[in-house]
């Protein structure tokens, strides 16, 4: 490998470019940048690193993975775009934003995929790998020329860049080294500190040999110099220097850190997209703090293993996504019946069935709330930000053990693969589970001695003298004896249900974002918080009387929500799960299927709640929500039915 200090771009490869003096420097409040390639070319790492460097600069960032559904889709295919979107802002950023302002593409086909998906802003800057123009395969060369011509005609500002050629003197496999070259270009374009970039590379390759770190730094610097020498523009996104340490992780890592911080000791799982990366990370680190990640033989085993572990010790956790959640349903019923604390994390994906494993959807709320069989009350929370992923697990563990209940934590693909900085948490002993109670139980005490007011009973754990009983999924009395008599059955159902009410009494009313009253209240849940609030902020800046309410607890719903709903002329939800479109000819009030939370609010509060949803598998864009809400605000109030 070349020594970085002697690096020079070969004269032959330098097209006639503008001199540095002719460069334009534009100051921006934010930009959305995409880096896309074939799978395996490293665009993901490039984008993630860009995000991390910008975060180190003090910028607000949100990174989103662009993932093809297959592990190795055919090279140069429209559906094969793999990479990362990075939204960089002067201020904190809460979502992936709207269409891209600048795209770096490793070939024209993956770029075409993004163009067709409507992911580029009109006039978007494109940095396109130019080597295809002279490809030996005339078809490829023709395709490249064709797409290039088309994009230029459509008004995109296309810059052809010989990325691979520039990398060739520096990397044994320039195809794989390109990503760091691109990172260097982007650091130059966005005026990011090159030393921070070098640090970031060292961090990203910390498990690799120093030679590899040096090689990548060389590529980074080459990219930086290339952009400096050949591109006529530069941007600056002024950052507000962070005053507190920030953590930069994606939602799945945040969930895993939450498991670590909750003091739980056992996580049982079965591989499933997109939840698996929670366990990847946890498998790497959990043992260091005395935990165990058990990869079970199937989803059912993962859930029942966690139930067994919870029953005999501290609350355990199982992590899954939609289809896996369905498989766990019977076991979840057992945990409800036996009043065994359990945390179930469901990182939702597109469904039903195998659906869209790598795509975002909020489709599992009702299966989380009402799943299993019979009356199986359980707590359902939804994480709304990356930071919330971390704290939700800690809260869930605490609730599970306080109320001896199943607590479902919903996340989704959007949070799972996105990164956003949040203040480094300050460790608190309160996060941790208490030691397993092994003290003797008073003679004659009963394992289900339900409190008449709250339904709560003390849990007896194996090892506790005098506490011996057989926990059963059958209907049982206070002594855990099988009981089929009507009175006992009703009493047990009653008490298990009361626990939800008891929890509800401890929950705070969620705050309203914006004014406490107005023309329109937008209710959301889960990963859409940042997006909805951004859209609402834009409308409020235009003088619109719109506010937002975001729900973290879906079951039970905190008190005070009805009062909030009633202070607005209209209420609607924005959700990532299907609702029938009122404009369809055969859809009317008598048959319209509402989105989950809209249906929930209507049923609970007898308030007219409309909904709008998008199930394209992509995170909903703030601009889209903005347009939907504006149209709704412009609508004449419908006559009361």
């Amino acid at each position, binding site marked *: 490998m070349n*020594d*970085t200090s*002697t690096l020079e771009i070969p004269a032959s490869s330098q097209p006639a470019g503008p001199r540095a003096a002719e460069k334009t420097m534009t100051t921006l409040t934010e930009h959305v940048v995409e880096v896309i390639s074939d799978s395996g070319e490293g665009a993901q790492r490039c984008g993630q690193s860009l995000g991390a460097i910008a*975060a*180190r600069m003090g910028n607000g960032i949100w990174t989103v993975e662009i993932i093809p559904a297959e592990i190795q889709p055919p090279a140069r295919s429209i559906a094969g775009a793999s990479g990362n979107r990075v939204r960089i802002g002067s201020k904190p950023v809460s979502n992936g934003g709207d269409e891209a302002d600048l795209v770096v593409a490793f070939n024209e086909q993956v770029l075409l995929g993004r163009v067709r998906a409507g992911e580029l802003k009109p006039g978007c800057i494109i940095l396109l790998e130019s080597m295809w123009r002279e490809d030996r395969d005339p078809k490829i060369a023709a395709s490249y020329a064709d797409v290039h011509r088309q994009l230029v005609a459509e008004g995109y500002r296309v810059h052809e860049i010989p990325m691979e050629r520039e990398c060739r003197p520096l990397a044994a496999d320039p195809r794989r080294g390109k990503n760091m070259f691109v990172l260097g270009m982007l650091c130059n374009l966005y005026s990011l500190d090159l*030393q921070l970039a*070098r640090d970031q*590379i*060292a*961090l990203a390759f*910390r498990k690799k040999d120093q030679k590899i*770190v040096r090689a990548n*730094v060389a590529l980074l610097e080459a990219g930086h110099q290339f952009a400096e020498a050949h591109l006529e523009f530069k941007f600056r996104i002024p950052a507000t*220097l*962070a005053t*507190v*340490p*920030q*953590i930069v992780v994606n939602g799945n*890592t945040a969930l895993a*850190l939450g498991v*670590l*911080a909750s003091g739980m000791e*056992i996580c*049982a799982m079965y591989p499933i997209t997109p939840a698996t990366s929670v366990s990847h990370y946890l498998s790497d680190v959990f*043992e260091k*703090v*005395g935990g*165990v990640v*058990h990869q*079970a*033989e*199937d989803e*059912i*085993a*993962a859930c*029942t293993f*966690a139930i*067994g572990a919870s029953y*005999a*010790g501290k609350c*355990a956790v199982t992590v899954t996504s939609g289809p896996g959640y369905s498989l766990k349903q*019977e*076991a979840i019923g057992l945990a409800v019946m036996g009043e065994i604390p359990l945390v179930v994390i469901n990182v939702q994906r597109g469904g039903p069935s195998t659906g869209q494993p790598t795509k975002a959807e909020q489709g599992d709320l009702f299966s989380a709330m009402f799943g299993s069989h019979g009356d199986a009350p359980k707590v359902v929370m939804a994480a709304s930000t990356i930071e919330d992923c971390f704290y939700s697990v800690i809260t869930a563990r605490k609730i599970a053990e306080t109320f001896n209940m199943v607590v479902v934590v919903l996340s989704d693909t959007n949070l799972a693969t996105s990164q956003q*900085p949040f203040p480094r*948490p300050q*460790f608190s002993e309160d996060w*941790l589970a208490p030691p397993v109670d092994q003290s003797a139980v008073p003679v004659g005490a009963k394992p289900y001695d339900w409190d008449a007011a709250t339904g709560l009973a003390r849990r007896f754990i*194996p*090892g506790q*003298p005098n*506490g*011996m*009983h*057989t926990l*059963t*999924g*059958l209907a049982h009395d206070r002594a855990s*004896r*099988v009981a089929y008599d009507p009175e006992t059955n009703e009493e047990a159902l009653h008490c298990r249900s009361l626990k939800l009410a008891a929890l509800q009494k401890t929950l705070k009313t969620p705050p309203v974002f914006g004014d406490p009253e107005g023309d329109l209240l937008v209710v959301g849940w889960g990963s859409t918080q940042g997006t909805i609030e951004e859209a609402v902020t834009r409308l409020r800046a235009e003088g619109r009387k719109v506010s937002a309410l975001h729900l973290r607890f879906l079951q039970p719903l905190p008190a005070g929500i009805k009062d909030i709903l009633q202070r607005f002329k209209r209420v609607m939800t924005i959700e990532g799960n299907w609702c029938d479109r009122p404009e369809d000819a055969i859809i009317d009030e008598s048959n319209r299927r509402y989105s989950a939370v809209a249906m929930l609010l209507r049923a609970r509060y007898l308030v007219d709640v409309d909904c709008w949803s998008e199930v394209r598998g992509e995170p909903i864009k703030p601009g889209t929500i903005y347009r939907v809400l504006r149209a709704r605000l412009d609508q004449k109030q419908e006559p009361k039915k």
Partner: protein
Amino acid sequence: MNMHATECLLRLYDEQPDLEKYQGGVPRWCVGCGDNAILAAVQRLCRNERLRAEKTVFVSGIGCSSRLPHYMKTYGFHGIHGRALPIAEGIKMARPDLDVFVATGDGDCCSIGAAHWIHAIRYNMNMTVLLHDNQIYGLTKMQASPTSPRGLRSNTTPRGAYLEPLNPLTVTLGVQNVSFVAQAVDWIPEVLYDIIAQAFHHKGLSFVRIMQRCPEWLPHQLEPWLNDPARILLLNHPNGIQVSPSLAKVYKNQQAHDPANIDRAREVASGSDPIPVGILYRNPAVPLYENLRHAGQPRTTEFIKSGLEAEFDKFTVWPQEADPKPRQGAMRAARRATTAGS
């Protein structure tokens, strides 16, 4: 079993507990049901081993057999159909200090829970698994099970079962990490007890298939073997079971079988008439999954905190002007690497 000195002392002064100490509710099984024999054997075992009731857990799935925990005065977990094994594994992983027993039936283990059965053998956690095999679904009223013999008439096979029965012994012996396999019949209590006791003492997952009678649905199914002792093949060995002289008078069909010999164990297991009874295979050297995973190690708050802070460090973006101390070694090393040549 490792014991603290105080526990040893306790044992010294403890009187032999009576069976009642381990007896829970009155069994609701049918008169003549083989489950009763198994229950009697495990209660005797608890008493003879002086197991601490609060440190003993009986786990089961669903079916007639799975009622067993209700009749023990220990901790019990009567779970859901087919899932006794993963529940028991979770218990053992969280609490290696507990003695764990699993009661499961031929439907529970070999049909709906078959995946867990295979993998439980692979995990080889230290627990005793009792397969109550009566060749029929009893609780749901007489449907063919995977171990029902071909031709058996049941409510779901009125013209006779179509398939040859699954052999739980050969299946178990075919799985990597198998460490203890035995077979007993409910009508020879002495051998049943001896096998369960040895299974209990084995360090690993001990799998005991117990051929048991179902007087309600298959009252005559095992009669030919019950009535003709020659159709029982007793496997004896110094490392297996030793047949008492009185028993040997009745059961003359005996064979020496070394439980260390897995090839021979597989051969013996594949025979169904005569029914082999004894310890087919034992290998105490197979590692325990809970040991491989270091289950049950004590954790202090400080330990968790330092682990968590180390993870936070990996992902922390420090304010630029802040004390550079928390910056990581990796990064400093990288700086050295990237500036070395300049």
